[in-house]
């Protein structure tokens, strides 16, 4: 090869690099066999403690759910996971069609017109939605209403600072407000009055951004039904492992009027000369590789494979399977809430409020309770006072279809002992 190139050594190909910059070698150990590599990696994995699905009662944005084997069987197909962003449409129809189906599934779930191909996570989806509102109406303040996931709000603040957008977490929206952001159910698991919040936003000319739990949409009124302009959320529950927080997937869908401000990839149908239907990246003029500094977002690589997992999950469940998942979780969480509230000294933090499958409860010596549960192999409730001082002693417990009746018994017995 060197001879064909016409040089004597690799060194001759590196002549443009100043000598003073050249390294002798990297200060890293030498390579290992696959066997030795995996021994080391497994040793790290084994230093972590994994709580069984059925004994995990902690949520806070990441949930244990039953994941059908079909999901991994599809996402581990190398034709999907080793392809690039589908720039050459004719050789990428599998990925493009999968994204198109995902977009349709999200649009159906949220009852909005158009979904994009995916974003990084729920937090950046909230931030991107706020940017859309800012670009749409030129206002530079967003109001966060109620208990929205604290990490989402932190990311929103970081994004907002770059764009000069102020984030307000108290008070009502005004004529200066670009958007009102709320979470349904909220970070504590409680239902909020999504209709009233949406109306309050619209009354001052602001957009309403609903951050929603995708599985809840099998039973709850979807954002499009109550008039929200943009729906966003975290899609981890749709077939993705907790994986210490990622990779998961952010989804975003909006009304037709806002489509040109949507960040990221969009796939649409197109036809070839013979009239065959295919799929292409569409409306690219919004994006960074065409519009550069005028782009609606800088996003390029998104979370396509996670969106594929979500598409397989939703297709597997279908409308009635998804509803069953939501209902089983609902029933179990309500039974659990009832039983925990009867423990001495325990009381629901907001007894007058409705919830689905996660709820806040005040526990005596809450941190000791969580430690005790861990000793018994149970991942207990999440101490939310680390973000909200007013919620001292409040834990949120979550229940899904993976927490069987016996697991509920084990939890209660552990707490009684």
């Amino acid at each position, binding site marked *: 090869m060197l001879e*064909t*190139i*016409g040089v004597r050594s690799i060194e001759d*190909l*590196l002549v443009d*690099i100043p000598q003073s*910059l050249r*390294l002798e070698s990297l200060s*890293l*150990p*030498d*390579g*290992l066999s*696959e066997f030795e*590599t*995996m021994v080391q990696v497994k040793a790290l994995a*084994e*230093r972590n*403690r994994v709580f069984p699905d059925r004994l995990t009662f*902690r949520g806070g944005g990441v949930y244990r759910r*039953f994941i059908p084997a079909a999901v991994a069987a599809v996402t581990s197909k190398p034709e*999907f996971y080793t*392809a690039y*962003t589908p720039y050459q*449409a004719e*050789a*990428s*129809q599998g*990925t493009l*069609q999968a994204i198109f*189906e995902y977009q349709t599934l999200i649009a*159906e779930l949220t009852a909005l017109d*158009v*979904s994009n191909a995916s974003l990084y996570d729920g937090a950046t989806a909230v931030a991107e939605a706020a940017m859309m509102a800012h670009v749409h109406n030129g206002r530079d303040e967003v109001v966060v209403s109620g208990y929205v996931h604290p*990490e989402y709000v932190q990311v929103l603040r970081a994004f907002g600072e*770059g764009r000069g957008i102020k984030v307000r977490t108290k008070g009502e929206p005004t004529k200066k407000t670009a958007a009102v952001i709320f979470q349904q159910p909220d970070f504590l698991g409680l239902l909020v009055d999504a209709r009233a919040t949406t109306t309050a936003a619209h009354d001052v000319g602001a957009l309403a951004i609903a951050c929603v739990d995708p599985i809840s949409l*099998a039973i709850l009124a979807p954002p499009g039904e109550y008039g929200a302009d943009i729906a966003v959320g975290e899609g981890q529950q749709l077939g993705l492992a*907790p994986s*210490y927080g990622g990779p998961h*997937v952010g989804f975003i869908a909006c009304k*037709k009027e806002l489509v040109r401000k949507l960040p990221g990839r969009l796939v649409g149908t197109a036809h070839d000369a*013979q009239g065959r239907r295919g799929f*292409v990246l*569409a409306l690219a003029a919004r994006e960074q*590789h065409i*519009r550069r*500094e005028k782009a609606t*977002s800088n996003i390029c*690589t*998104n979370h396509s494979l*996670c969106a594929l997992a979500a598409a397989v999950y939703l297709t597997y469940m*279908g*409308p*009635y399977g998804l509803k069953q998942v939501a*209902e089983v979780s*609902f*029933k179990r969480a*309500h039974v659990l809430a009832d039983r925990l509230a009867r423990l001495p000294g325990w009381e629901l933090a907001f007894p007058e409020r409705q919830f689905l499958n996660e709820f806040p409860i005040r526990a005596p010596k809450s941190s000791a309770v969580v430690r005790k549960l*861990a000793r018994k192999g149970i991942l207990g409730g999440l101490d939310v006072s680390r973000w909200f001082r007013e919620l001292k002693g409040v834990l949120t417990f979550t229940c899904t279809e993976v927490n*069987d009746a016996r697991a509920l018994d084990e939890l209660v017995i552990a707490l009684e002992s």
Partner: protein
Amino acid sequence: MTEPLSFELSRPSVDPPRLPDPEVSGPAPSDVLPREVLRSRPPGLPRLSEPEIMRHYSRMASLNYSISENFYPLGSCTMKYNPVANEAAAALPGFAGLHPYQDEESVQGALELMWRLEQALCAIVGVDRVTLQPAAGAHGEWTALRMIRAYQHSKGEPRTEVLVPDSAHGTNPASAALSGFQVVEVLSGADGRISLADLESKLSPRTSALMLTNPNTLGLFEREILDIAELVHSTGAMLYYDGANLNAFMGICRPGDMGFDAVHMNLHKTFTTPHGGGGPGAGPVGVKAELVPFLPSPTVERKNGHLALDFKRPQSIGRVRSFYGNFGMLVRAYTYILAMGGDGLSQASQDAVLSANYLRKLVEGDLEMPHEGPCMHEFVASAAHLNHEDGVRALDIAKALLDRRFYAPTVYFPLVVPEAIMVEPTETESKATLEAFAQAVKEIVAQARSNPQALHEEPRHLPVGRLDEVAAARRINAYLQGQSEDPVLRWTAPAESAS
């Protein structure tokens, strides 16, 4: 050979999958919740059986080109082989099963992995600390610029401009704008490298940073990088490294030594985490000491062998995504680095440079080479000569390559080269593959001269022919303007027929 949509395959008679019984006699949502809170009709998800689903997705998979099956010389994207051991590592229950809000004590192995990965990346690029939080390259660019801005503000210097070369990736100016900067373009000289004179004329006390990738997007090493760094630093501005092209020189040289103050890396390029058809990736950012206080929160700290997440970072730019980044991708990249070692990574970069120069040599008689070699890990050719003679464009060559079972190079980028064809073979490819690709290019160029019309009709052997994107855009416009019911961007049920 196209596949119907899942929605078109859906049959109302398909029962939902069997799911766990509630086992408890709790209330149903409709027993407790007011009607206006409930969904009025079920979402329009398809109804398919598991075998139908598996066949549907298997058929779709067969419509894709991928690294596992095809040479994928997509310039700037570093499409190298993704070792399957990476996948096995990320799937280990000890990683995949971790909840992000577990106590630190119970995730020491995960934190140790993050710590070790950070150390390895510091060694590879020559920086003091790395944040693993950004989810992708563009996210990393933005994170780095936010840190640079925060640092300069802390010194009472609200600098407002970011310089970006005309050959830069589109994400650079987009990230700069989203970070609150004005974008100023710096021109390339005739040799394809940044023009020092133009750079000097654009630097001012307003300049916050210069964003640069090296080798640049033409695959050329910025020979004057040390002068560039000195010039930029002399005005008090910072130098930012776009790590898209890091695969060119691991173990050969380091951005940190060149004078870069902040560096992002694409784990999904250089460190073999798969692209997934467009993500997830990971875009860690490395910084020199003066930017360390501004790193996103939390960082992973190690004290006496105990690992902890540090949230007490008063000068931090805050949080750039939820939790701790794309942890699963970090596991994959760490596995790769461990297996390759320092020696293997150096070898990989040398092989990547060798492959690119070899392929460049093989095709230089057929395609124009606007800039002199040697190149680093990729090269940019031009099809402008064919366009002039007989109307064949870079796009036609790309489509013709698809028909010959090669994925296409990046075309029309960088913008500074007309009819650009950007080729990055990576260290993965054998000599035989490179030669087969060069032979295909030769045949296509010959055809461009003998029968150009035929090339406009490629590809012919793929599930669909060239798709009419212009017509698609028109249909989307019609929908957005209320002139059509077809949303184009999603499937909708066809209107009920009269029967």
